[in-house]
């Protein structure tokens, strides 16, 4: 397996219109392994689609380079790149049947009709479109259209498969089942893929690694676990999953992997991947809703008042007011625990293993 199958090197894209210029992608560096599925994740306007379009060749970078399997493809036109794209709106050719759509790329490359037939059959089987050869795209459901689009790209056996928010036009239920489907097919074929989405749940469930972007810049690259457990900054921690933030101070560097922090007078030991803090630094403690427990009020802990209670069957969600901050705490399996009601005073007990520390920053809302 090649470690640097797809490489983006200092990739930059600046859009100019008149006197204004917008840096859509800002010095992005990324290496994707062969067979890996990497997701570009971020809010709209973060440059993820622009990055994808540069990989596919529809946008030319302002500066920087793109390598696929060792070859510099930075200026290769899209029709000569070993990439294919699944478009957000599928872009199925309305004047062709399902079969013609899928066979299109092979026909363009003048493959023998017999081979085209075999490969189309195989790919249609793989994505579950058997028997729909002669339908027109307008006669298909959204999910089926999506699969035609995927098949049309896969049949080209591209070196890199690009997916531009492929699920955004499906309803919620279809999205969940289709993303599992896509992941299965991707793994079975073993195809290197770059997937663009703004849905963090989608990114976490189907990626080998996630690239989080904001305003054209990469914030963090890591496996879904790394990103969830050890976000590097407020943006990432806030964007992935739910998180509570409590301000505090570093009081003691215990080792390269462990520091002690002071939160509202209570000290906590927190393990981190690699220490970058020094004593006295202001920090945020990141507390996921499931990394806290509630107990009846006692001293020596973080205390607060229950301000909202939401029962979700499998979970109980409490909102607790702690000195004008609101913390969200989820208790799994509520039957096993004491149920608190609004107005009750409680102690918030933090589970030190799942806590995380990020640098303090001013939060503008």
């Amino acid at each position, binding site marked *: 397996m090649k470690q640097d199958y797809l490489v983006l090197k200092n990739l930059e894209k600046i859009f100019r219109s008149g006197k204004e210029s917008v840096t859509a992608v800002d010095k992005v560096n990324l290496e994707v392994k062969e067979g890996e599925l990497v997701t570009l994740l971020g809010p709209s306007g973060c440059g993820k689609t622009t990055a994808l379009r540069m990989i596919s060749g529809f946008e030319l970078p302002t500066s920087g380079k793109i390598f696929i399997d060792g070859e510099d493809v930075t200026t290769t036109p899209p029709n000569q790149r070993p990439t294919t794209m699944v*478009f957000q*709106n599928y872009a199925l*050719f309305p004047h062709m049947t399902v079969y013609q759509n899928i066979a299109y790329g092979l026909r363009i490359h003048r493959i023998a009709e017999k081979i085209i037939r075999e490969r189309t059959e195989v790919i249609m089987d793989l994505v579950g479109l058997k028997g729909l050869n002669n339908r027109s795209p307008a006669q298909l459901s959204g999910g089926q259209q999506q699969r035609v689009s995927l098949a049309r790209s896969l049949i080209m056996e591209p070196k890199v498969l690009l997916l531009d928010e492929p699920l955004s036009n499906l309803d919620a239920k279809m999205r969940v089942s289709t993303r599992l489907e896509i992941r299965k097919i991707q793994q079975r074929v073993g195809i290197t893929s770059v997937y663009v989405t703004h849905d963090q749940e989608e990114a976490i469930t189907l990626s080998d690694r996630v690239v989080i972007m904001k305003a054209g810049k990469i914030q963090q690259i890591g496996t879904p676990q790394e990103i969830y457990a050890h976000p590097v900054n407020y943006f990432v921690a806030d964007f992935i999953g739910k998180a509570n933030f409590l301000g505090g101070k570093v009081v003691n560097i215990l080792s390269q992997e462990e520091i002690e922090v002071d939160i509202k007078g209570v000290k906590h030991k927190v393990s981190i991947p690699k220490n970058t803090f020094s004593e006295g630094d202001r920090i945020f403690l990141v507390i996921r809703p499931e990394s806290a427990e509630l107990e009846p009020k006692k001293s020596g802990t973080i205390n607060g008042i229950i301000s909202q209670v939401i029962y979700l069957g499998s979970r109980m969600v409490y909102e607790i007011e702690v000195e004008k901050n609101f913390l969200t705490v989820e208790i799994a399996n509520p039957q096993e625990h004491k149920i608190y009601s609004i107005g009750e005073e409680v102690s918030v007990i933090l589970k030190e293993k799942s806590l995380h520390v990020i640098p303090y920053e001013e939060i503008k809302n």
Partner: protein
Amino acid sequence: MNSSNRKIHDITGNLRLIWKEPLLFISILAIFYFLIVFVVFPIFQVFKTSLFIDKQWNFSNYSAIFSKRYYYQPFFNSMLLGVYTATIGTIIGFIFSYALTRTPMPFKNFFRMTATFPIISPPFVVALSAILLFGRAGSLNSFLSKIIGDYTIYGLGGLILVETIAYAPTAFLVLYGILQAIDPSLEEASMDLGASRAKVFSTITLPLATPGIASAWLLVFIQSLADFGNPMVISGNYRVLSVQAFLQITGMYDLPRGSTLAILLFIPTIIAFFLQKYWVSRKSYVTVTGKPTGATIKQLEWYIKLPVYSCCIIFTGMVFLFYGTIIHGSFQTLWGVNPTLTLKNYVEVYQVGKDYLIDSLVLSSVATPIAGIIGIFISFLVIRKKFIGRGVMEFISMLTFAVPGTVVGIGYILAFNQKTVLFPFVMTGTAWIIIILLVFRNMPVGIRSGIAALQQIDPSIEEASTDLGADSNTTFRRITLPMIAPAFFSGLAYNFVKAMTAISAVIFVVSGKWNLITIAILGFVDNSRYAQAAAMSNLLIIIVLIALGIIQLIVNRIGKGVRTIDIVA
């Protein structure tokens, strides 16, 4: 529900309509009466005159025409001219739309405005300009003779040139809408799968645009067949149907033969219209919603840009050359002989043409609002109301759009020079016949823009109003009307332009008492007084532009983002 049940249901529905909304019912009947008398009846009269002699079924008019080359040649000439003009015009229109939607060509708005300008100008101005440029005393005549040898602008070549300039804009507007509506990601997908630019074009762009191309071709073909002004000025010995029918009637007073020629003109036009409306448009994969897709314009190779840009620049240059010549020519003492600049043409035009101009303005000003109101009312009935004959109403009102002016004009003299059961008044020679002709000839565009506007208004908006307690009257007044007002005024603009520049049909019904500026211009051209004709054409264009400007101002005040010119087109 089976069909007889449905019929009963329809009839009870209609009865309920009479009961609940008698006013609406009466207006529907009135509109049907008008459509039958002023649209169907005249065409019927033309048929009747060509097929009956002394109240006897007689085919001799047709056999006479097909026995003599002199008579049948115009039919083939018209068809040939139509095919040439439609083909060249569609190619130019396509290249123009491609440039505007698929390339990073600079000054797009400028090109767009120039390309659509011929639509608002009187139809024969281009021909007049061609004579000023390439005629015997033409300013480019000696220059061109040196290059291509002896030639004459009068004839098929000249006609193709001027009609292409006059009608390529129609093709452009149709194709612009189509190309704008093709999702660029389809082309990207094709390229992504390995297709070269040529392959993308031949396997995606072109097939998707084909119904639009066919549509554009047929529309230009119809316009070319129906064109009267340009051939009247420049056809020379190349005889076409519209002019021949006119000459048979005004020169030979031979109504039956003129009617027969008109029918020969009518049949191919109406076939082309049906093909366009009911066949080609059904085959379309592209829905023109008016909402442009986010076209992504990418780097194009020079060998694509060069020919495309050149074509646009050349065509735009021609438009400037032709209309510039009209302006230039209007200030010359005697074209080709004495180039001293002078204002005397305008003085003369004012003295001679003042009455024509006033007539044109008065008649158009009366006809325009009537056409506008009937148009918007018919579109409302067709889209929002259910009644028996709704489809027939839409069909008849669109018919006038397809029927060549020559046929309508002949029909009007035949139908209204005597009292009939249907219409017990003689109108020939009055202002009314001109006004009514203008109203019913120009109404379809008001209907079309009304229908387009109403279809874009989600019925749930009106339902929301009803839901909040408004009755249907209030809803129409407070919700529907304000929303379709821009379309209404834009329809008015178009109607006014068409009324002021009309010639092919009205030329049959003008009289000594009521005459029109376009016919006065044609008179000047006939007498080779080109400078005066140019001056008068300029006046006409300026008046039309002022009117468009005023209506655009109104539209700007009441509706945002609607451009009159778009709807005019």
